[in-house]
């Protein structure tokens, strides 16, 4: 069980079909399989233990994922947007790590690490390669290492083995199910778990991948039209920027059948606008974590439509849910004392399944004795098994003994016409344990008094959930995939 098996099967299915279109090169399935074979031989002959990739989306990235698999060593994508010194501290190791770096970063990496070649060189030396003669079949080998974004705590490195990723792919995609004319636009970066599984599931389905090397909403829309893209996946900030770019005009993307979004919470207003601007497109919301090989719950196109057209408040609320847990994954909500909680009650989400790794490099396993993984996400199920994610458990504010999810207050703040962005955190307090502090960014040209915003929240939530303080800001700190970095705000209090 090896990722190379997925590529081999897809190549057998239709060798001359287009596999990847990117700024660097376009490859058919057979060409990609050949390059993966050549890359695997190169890595094996030089006894590399890990191959790191430092660059944007490209055909070279896709080739390297499979080349690493063929050589039986981990593929380790690095965030190329980090500062040089952060990158250098990551690759400053005695292990045999080959760094494939984008041209702009080669010199900086070489200053502290001997084994570095440019992505262009890698493309040259894998060109015209022949398919691999063999590859290791041990399902326990490490396929991918991914650094978490560390929005609440110190970043960790997640370990995903071949069995985790292959289980996810086999459980969620039908082999060869894509039409030869299908194309998926990928704009999530290669160091995000969605970038990895995207590659695997679309290759297995036989769908051409169109890589965008950097995200810009105008270029994204233009690519979807020019390449007749049928599927696309975006993170919520990208969706919000596309909606802003359209400015009320329908998107005019007749080829686009499915648009999936996920990676962090989405403002309900963004989804409602997007549904209106993409009338012919099915929407899918996917929820998952790096530690679970990405998606473990899906809000389907049908769920979106039901929520949109229902008179029932509970059904309408599902537009803000993560949908239902996919087959092959089990989920439980547990209290802090470890008790199983029924529908309607919030607690920590625990997961189990073949795609769930929950494993970190150089850290003790967080799995319990029965293999359940604590996500650290606070969540509840409704009566129809729809999963609602309330945020990170570590972000929960405990004010006067009451557990308060920041997301609930943020959602209300965002309903205020003057508030464009909102972040709610807890501040240490002698009397209450914690008090509620809201950071808000006002919409351009908007003007609002913080007392007035407080009374707006008080009108919709209990007094105990009304922010004790509201602080105005020009901007809030986010990761480059749009996750709010709360620890930066908390550190200021």
């Amino acid at each position, binding site marked *: 069980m090896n990722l190379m098996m997925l590529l*081999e099967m897809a190549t*057998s*299915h239709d060798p001359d079909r287009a596999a990847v279109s990117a700024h660097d090169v376009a490859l058919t399935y057979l060409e990609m399989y050949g390059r993966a074979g050549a890359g695997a031989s190169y890595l094996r002959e030089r006894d590399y233990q890990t191959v790191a990739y430092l660059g944007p989306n490209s055909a070279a990235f896709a080739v390297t994922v499979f080349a690493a698999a063929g050589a039986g060593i981990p593929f380790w994508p690095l965030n190329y947007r980090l500062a040089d010194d952060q990158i250098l501290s990551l690759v400053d190791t005695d292990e045999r790590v080959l760094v494939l770096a984008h041209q702009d970063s080669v010199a900086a990496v070489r200053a502290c690490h001997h084994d570095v070649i440019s992505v262009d060189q890698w493309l040259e030396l894998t060109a015209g390669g022949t*398919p691999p003669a063999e590859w290791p*079949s041990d399902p326990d080998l490490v396929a991918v290492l991914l650094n978490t974004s560390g929005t609440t705590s110190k970043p960790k490195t997640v370990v995903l083995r071949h069995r985790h990723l292959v289980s996810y792919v086999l459980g969620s995609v039908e082999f060869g199910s894509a039409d030869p004319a299908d194309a998926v636009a990928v704009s999530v970066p290669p160091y995000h778990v969605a970038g990895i599984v995207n590659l695997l599931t*679309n290759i297995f389905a036989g769908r051409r991948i169109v890589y965008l090397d950097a995200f810009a909403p105008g270029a994204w829309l233009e690519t979807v039209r020019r390449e007749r893209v049928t599927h696309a996946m975006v993170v919520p900030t990208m969706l919000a920027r596309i909606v802003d770019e359209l400015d009320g005009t329908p998107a005019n993307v007749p080829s686009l059948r499915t648009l999936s979004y996920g990676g962090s919470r989405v403002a309900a207003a963004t989804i409602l606008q997007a549904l209106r601007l993409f009338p012919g497109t099915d929407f*899918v919301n996917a929820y998952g974590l790096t530690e679970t090989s990405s*998606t473990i719950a*899906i809000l389907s196109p049908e769920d979106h439509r039901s929520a949109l057209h229902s008179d029932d408040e509970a059904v309408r609320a599902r537009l803000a849910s993560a949908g239902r847990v996919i087959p092959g994954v089990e989920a439980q909500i547990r209290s802090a004392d470890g008790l199983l909680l029924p529908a309607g009650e919030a607690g920590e989400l625990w997961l189990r399944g073949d795609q769930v790794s929950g494993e970190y490099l150089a850290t003790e396993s967080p799995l319990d004795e029965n293999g359940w993984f604590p996500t650290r996400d606070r969540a509840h199920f409704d009566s129809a098994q729809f999963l609602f994610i309330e945020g990170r458990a570590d972000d929960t504010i405990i004010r006067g003994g009451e557990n308060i999810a920041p997301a609930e207050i943020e959602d209300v703040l965002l309903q205020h016409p003057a508030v464009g962005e909102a972040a709610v955190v807890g501040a240490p307090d002698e009397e209450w344990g914690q008090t509620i502090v809201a950071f808000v960014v006002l919409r351009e040209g908007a003007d609002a008094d913080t007392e007035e915003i407080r009374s707006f929240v008080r009108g919709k939530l209990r007094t105990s959930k009304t922010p004790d303080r509201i602080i105005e800001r020009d901007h809030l700190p986010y990761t480059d995939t749009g996750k709010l970095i709360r620890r930066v705000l908390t550190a200021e209090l």
Partner: protein
Amino acid sequence: MQLRAGMHLVSVVSPASVIVLRAPKKDVEVCCGGVAMAAADNIARDIEVQATGNGNGLILGKRYAHESSELEFLCTRAGAGELTVDGEPFILKDAKPLPPSD
């Protein structure tokens, strides 16, 4: 032979091969075309366009299940020969694809 998830089995009568997705904790004999399949550690073969169906043969990318023995395979290479376990045939599992989320 005791099977484990992730193991590859190859046919000795045709190019067909499968990967084990689910296996019971007991010995079973899996045959292709009436002859026992062999475990293969390293997979080496040439690429050729695969037939998508040939009588009783194995179809690339399809899942085969045998409920009473809790066995499930994925065909990773097509080929002739009916798949059986202890003499009984497998059933072709229906696909229940999820909406594309990637």
